[in-house]
């Protein structure tokens, strides 16, 4: 690697970077070919390929005929293209139809479970973000005795991993008679999140007080200031926490496994796992499984298309706090 160290570039770069963005890597991106950079690009290419290929394989398999998969397992395109696998997992195919395409007897009413997941993920995320937001406001903006003590006591929860609280929480939910209810599924995580409160409080501390104080002097109530001034200003971190919370809840497996055994409340992750386990070992319905997988992953992929950049920034941001 030669180091051209062009002074001209070194001088102009900060000026250009200031307007463009600070994201720009320091190294000159238009540097000429070098073996090291070629290797680096090749490495990135492999990473992208390995990351994306399974997603492509889900697509390719889910549009295939499960019987025909055996005939041409290495085909890069769907084998004997059909929507049969989707019809099976959506409960639209008759038993005769699904057997004809290599489906097993096992079926999955996937829309029903997706709806359960949606209720679970939306409610638990919405509630915990809201309750964290108002608590964070009390810790960042209100003046009251014991504030710092209460805050540090709440933060100790960050150190306790799920493994310690999950079993006792199951016993608690069972004692409350909330097994197999959305309340039991949602409640333990809906009221309190140490990370959310900490994250939002830090953000609020960095906001200017002036607008809020002006509103207070004009006679606005504290609650009005909270909802009409502070809340809109925190929409960035609130979105961040909502997205991360929604992804986490949608993908959660262990807690729903503990508290739900009834299909009426079971989320999609569990239904998918049951579907996989009930698929015959000798000749699994891979096309059906991949179709179900695709439906389970689809909301996250759509979320990604809509908020891709925001998700990337959120994750980086949450890591730095």
């Amino acid at each position: 690697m030669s180091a051209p160290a062009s002074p001209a570039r070194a001088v102009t770069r900060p000026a250009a970077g200031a307007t463009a963005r600070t994201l720009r890597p320091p190294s000159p991106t238009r540097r000429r070919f070098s073996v090291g950079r070629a290797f680096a690009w090749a490495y990135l290419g492999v990473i992208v390929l390995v990351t994306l290929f399974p997603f492509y394989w889900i697509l390719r398999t889910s549009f295939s005929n499960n019987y025909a998969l055996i005939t041409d397992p290495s085909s890069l395109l769907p084998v004997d293209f059909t929507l049969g696998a989707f019809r099976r997992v959506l409960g639209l195919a008759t038993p005769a139809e699904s057997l004809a395409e290599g489906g097993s007897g096992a079926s999955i009413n996937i829309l029903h479970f997706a709806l359960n997941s949606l209720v679970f993920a939306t409610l638990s995320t919405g509630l915990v973000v809201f309750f964290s937001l108002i608590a964070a406001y009390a810790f960042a903006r209100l003046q009251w005795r014991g504030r710092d003590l209460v805050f540090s006591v709440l933060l100790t929860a960050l150190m306790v991993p799920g493994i310690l609280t999950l079993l006792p929480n199951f016993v608690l939910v069972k004692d409350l008679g909330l097994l197999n209810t959305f309340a039991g599924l949602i409640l333990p995580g809906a009221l309190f999140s140490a990370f959310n409160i900490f994250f939002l409080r830090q953000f609020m501390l960095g906001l200017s007080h002036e607008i809020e104080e002006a509103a207070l002097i004009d006679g606005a109530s504290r609650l009005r200031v909270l909802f009409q001034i502070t809340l809109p200003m925190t929409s960035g971190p609130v979105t961040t926490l909502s997205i991360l919370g929604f992804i986490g809840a949608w993908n959660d497996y262990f807690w729903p496994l503990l508290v739900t055994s009834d299909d009426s409340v079971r989320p999609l992750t569990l239904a998918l796992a049951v579907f996989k386990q009930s698929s015959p070992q000798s000749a699994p319905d891979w096309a059906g499984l991949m179709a179900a997988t695709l439906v389970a992953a689809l909301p996250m992929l759509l979320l990604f298309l809509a908020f891709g950049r925001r998700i990337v920034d959120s994750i980086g941001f949450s890591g730095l706090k």
Partner: protein
Amino acid sequence: MAISTTTPARERRATRRPRDTATTRHAGSPAHRGDARLAWVLISPAVVGFLVFAAYPTLRGIYLSFTNFRVLTPPEWTGLENLRRLVGDTTFWSSLGVTVYFVVLSVVIGMLLSVTTAVVLHRLTASTMLRGIIILPFLISGVVAATTWSWMLDAQLGIVNIAIRALGLDPVFFLGSSRWAIPTIALISVWKGMGYNAIIVFAGLQTISPSIYEAGRIDGANEVQMFRRLTLPLLRPVLAMVLVLTVIGSFQVFDIVAVATQGGPARASNVLQLYIYDKAFGQFEFGYAATMSLALFAMLIAITFLQMRLLRADESDTD
């Protein structure tokens, strides 16, 4: 009446004021009258959630680990009996061994790949799309990842084994053999989590001032030297955090294993969390399961503490 009851309270607060100086400077000013009551209203959901679903279960979990508790009958105190049993429980120790094997593999490979990826991305391109692509696996559940890889790694029809056969090699029973089950699960876990960690490391890299690299280049340092002498030391806090979180998360691996192998074959991938789950919900030995949870928690604290110590000790070799 109202005045006579509020005034003493305000006076009392005023006398306490010097104790929490800076933060409560405005206490008692008109703008903050009634703050305390509103504050308790606003934090009450969080406080209830903390007490009922975090503090109480933690204490109850510790209590239950000293009891014989089978859910349907009340717990009965057995003192150190569970702990004695734990020491002699060969399945527990083999599960711990399996878990540690998994943690070492997934953390070492995962950290190497995510740091390399972050550095390469940072040096080559600011493309948000590339960063978006590499976090895609983080967005899907462990169940989806495990199902997809089970299919791709299938011994007969899986595309990976077809490729291996095309190279003239023998197919590998990835998830079906005792030897490969844990390494395979570790790779699935790395595939799922690598991008997420890479993005956090990448964000850490962005906080390093470009002028440091310019200076390094002027001094004639090459990329490898700059990575070792500048990037690594400056990135240490972020790397420490990612490492600690990855270790803690890996010790609690569950969903990928539950879906891909269910602990098999012959308990070769029976990780601790799976064993704890089976004891609690398969055999209703909640007391003993709580003991194992507590043991795992104690180990996690010890490991985290050790990591913090070791990583801080590194601070001196930045020269």
